[in-house]
């Protein structure tokens, strides 16, 4: 059995590494996102091998069901991001690689060196199975559980507001009073009897075009 597990572990590990490499190397960004999903799947499999079923399910639900989909949505909403002329590797990639490799090694090497490799020790009694988690949520952590629900509701409402596309309103700069007056004058060509300015309140203030909003914070 150990051998089967070890072979499966090796295959999964290779799958994860390969998928991760593909994420950063493919040119098409949607493909990259799909490779990321593959990578997440591999990690879920690792959890299964470690007998952490619940964690594996959560991994699939959260990372594939939510995070990856979010990434895909973001990618598809952002246009013109896959410019074919853009080089995959930027100029100083070698030095970058060196620095990251050193940093990575600085963390990893001591960890590997100091670790007590007891991989297949006796399985511990389940520490945090779904059952225990459920009990905890209904007992000790009842309030955080509820508050998290409120938090999600607020986040959802917020997301809808941010994302709501209203063609009528969105991205139309709100006009200043003087601009509105000018616009009205254009639309309905003024008869000669009509006073030059229908709104005397603004007439004295703005003979010149009003400042564009970009000029915020002009000097005193």
């Amino acid at each position: 059995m150990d051998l089967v597990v070890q072979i499966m572990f090796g295959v999964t590990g290779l799958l994860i590494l390969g998928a991760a490499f593909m994420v950063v190397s493919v040119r098409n960004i949607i493909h990259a996102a799909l490779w990321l999903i593959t990578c997440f799947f591999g990690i879920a499999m690792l959890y299964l091998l470690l007998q952490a079923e619940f964690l594996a399910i959560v991994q699939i639900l959260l990372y594939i069901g939510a995070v990856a989909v979010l990434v895909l949505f973001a990618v598809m909403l952002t246009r013109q991001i896959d410019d074919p002329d853009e080089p995959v590797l930027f100029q100083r990639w070698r030095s970058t690689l060196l620095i990251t490799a050193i940093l990575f090694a600085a963390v990893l090497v001591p960890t590997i060196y100091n670790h007590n490799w007891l991989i297949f020790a006796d399985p511990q009694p389940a520490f945090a199975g779904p059952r225990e988690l459920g009990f905890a949520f209904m007992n000790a952590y009842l309030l955080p559980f509820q508050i998290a629900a409120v938090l999600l509701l607020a986040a959802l409402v917020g997301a809808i507001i941010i994302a709501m596309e209203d063609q009528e309103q969105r991205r139309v700069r709100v006009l200043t009073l003087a601009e509105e007056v000018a616009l009205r004058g254009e639309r309905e060509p003024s008869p000669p009897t009509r006073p030059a300015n229908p709104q005397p309140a603004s007439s004295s203030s703005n003979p010149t075009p009003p400042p564009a909003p970009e000029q915020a914070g002009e000097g005193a």
Partner: protein
Amino acid sequence: MPPEIVIPAIDVRVIAPMLTIFAWATVLLMVDLFMPGKDRKLTGYLALAGLAVTALVTLAVQPAPGTSRTSFSNMVVLDSFGTTLTLILLLIAAFSIAISINYLSYHNIEMGEYYPLILFATGGMILLGQSTNLILVFLGVELLSITLYVLTAFFYPRYTSEEAGLKYLLLGAFAAGFLIYGIALIYGGAGTLDLFEIGAFLNTSLAVGSAFPPGALLVLIGGALVLIGFCFKISLVPFHMWTPDVYEGSPTPVAAFMSVGTKGAAFAALLRILIVALLPFKIYWLPVLGVLATLTMLFGNIAALMQPNMKRMLAYSSVGHAGYITIGIMTAGTHGTESFLFYLLAYALANMGAFAVLITLERRGEMAWSVDDFAGLWKRYPLLAIAMATFMLSLAGVPPTAGFFGKFFVFAAAWEDGQIFLVFMGVLSSAIAAFFYLRVIMRMFMDEPVREVIPIFNRGLTITIGIAVVGTIVFGLLPTPLVSLVQNSVIALGVGG
């Protein structure tokens, strides 16, 4: 074995204020959906009613001074500190909604969800003030932050608003990372997230021997990271840099709400963490906070000096005030709690008022909150000018305004605690600060108008400004009732009792 879930005994009174406000917000979301027409003012009024109901509930469950109730596995506590803070926060939220009602329609950004979001954020603030468990603290911070990210970006016709929202989101997430990492380290060190238990753990483990135990070390580093997470929320230098940009981009009522509400709630949570859990580490966090407070007071006030943009000026001024409040927090344990609450209320009145005046002068489609618009205000709108002058004097700490007593209490508490250097820096920086507050007064009273400015008045703005002026002056002349209120607001130092 059939699962048998036993829900522990719950004291609903403990969470009654936030329960009310969350429930109201959720129902209001629904009500808003079925409300006909485009006019959303009614939602705003209903939200105000919700705040009033919450205030009544809070008063009803208010414990006697010195006593407290806990529930939900000791995760939340209802003590007089929490209820006083809740009342102040509700007042701030009510001000924010009152000044929003016409603002939104005037600027063509009216959406009914605005008000429930404010209520959610207020609920998060109340939670922050009451929680005694780091998990809940984190949830409170996130609830507050996420709603505020959205509210910051609420002014969707403006690109700057969206930019501000994104900036706030990115940096907020960055800060939240430190916060949650710190919480994890504390859990790793102390084995608990309960503030009382952390305090007890530190007391026992530090008492054992001369060596610094590793568990305590983890708690120390974790505590520092939690502190940093809060420093972002309360914008202490150098974690303050988002403040002017975000305030400038967000809708003005939201900036007002953030400048006092978020600060107040985050300070309250920090205060509780510092004196309940981390008091044994006072020798470590005291110098850190002292340096941060000094930097903040100096930097905030100096940076505000040259601001021609009133909104940015108020943003920097709020950074400076965070420094003063930090002094109050640092002396927690002696009179810090009282001075913090008093300062918060005084600052809330003056700052909300100043933002409200700013809103009256804000013109549709323009983004310049120039100090020039205040020039010659006395001549045209003397009452508005006097109101603004009152707020500026209160922010500068000139008697007989509430702001003076806020500073006085904070400095007196610090002096009593032996932090004479901080008092000195505080007084010095407030002398610097007087300059730019005064400049506004000077422009209003000693200048000809630069351009025609027609203030917009409506009921919400007028009432807010009126209450803020009256409050600022009355609490300056008669602070005693308020002082006895905050003196009775005690932080529960143990479970029950």
